């Protein structure tokens, strides 16, 4: 094989190798980040702030929910045009119950003596999801 052909061959092998390795690097990078997050010590003060902010969002969602719930119920002969649907009311009540309980759990988990930070982190994350679900319903119907 002549020298230029050898060079081309090595260049091709190099390009192929880098193409096949790059996505692999991205995967390793992703795994590295997951490990980094997993190994990062959980800051209890940050979790306490998170729980506090979540409770504030929950308070705001409650207020918007009240706007909707205080309207007369729909489906009655005397119901006005702007009214609250019983099905939505039921959905809102369920979402509020879950969000309220999870916010209290998060508050308890981040202030409990001897609480495991990783457990508290999971409880706060779960509370965030249920508060978001309640906020979504409350904002959708309460801010109209």
């Amino acid at each position, binding site marked *: 094989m002549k020298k230029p052909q050898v060079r081309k061959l090595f260049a091709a092998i190099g390009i192929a190798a880098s193409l096949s390795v790059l996505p692999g690097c991205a995967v390793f990078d992703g795994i590295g980040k997951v490990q980094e997050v997993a190994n990062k010590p959980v800051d209890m*003060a*940050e979790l*306490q*702030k*998170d729980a*506090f*902010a*979540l*409770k*504030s*969002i*929950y*308070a*705001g969602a*409650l*207020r*918007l*929910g*009240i*706007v909707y*719930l*205080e309207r007369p*119920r729909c489906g009655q002969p005397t119901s006005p045009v702007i009214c609250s649907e019983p099905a939505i*009311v039921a959905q*809102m*009540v369920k979402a*509020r119950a879950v969000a*309220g309980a999870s*916010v209290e759990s998060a508050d308890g988990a981040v202030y409990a003596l001897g609480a495991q930070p990783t457990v508290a982190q999971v409880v706060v994350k779960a509370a*965030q999801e249920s508060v978001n679900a309640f*906020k979504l319903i409350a*904002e959708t119907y*309460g*801010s109209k």
Partner: protein
Amino acid sequence: MGAAIVLAIEVASMIPTLIDAGMDVYQLWAGVKAVNDEAGPPTDAQRQQLNELVKGLEARFDAAAKG
């Protein structure tokens, strides 16, 4: 940016809607300021104020749900 500050921004973004809904947002705004990145964890007084606000709202929510 910490999770707390992201949540605080979320609370702040709700404030105009809450004012429209007739809420006295002073306490919520205090909550937003309390969880900024530089601040330490909320004080007992701040927590107590927020707890009282939530309890009042929950009672009103539950009463309104009963119709």
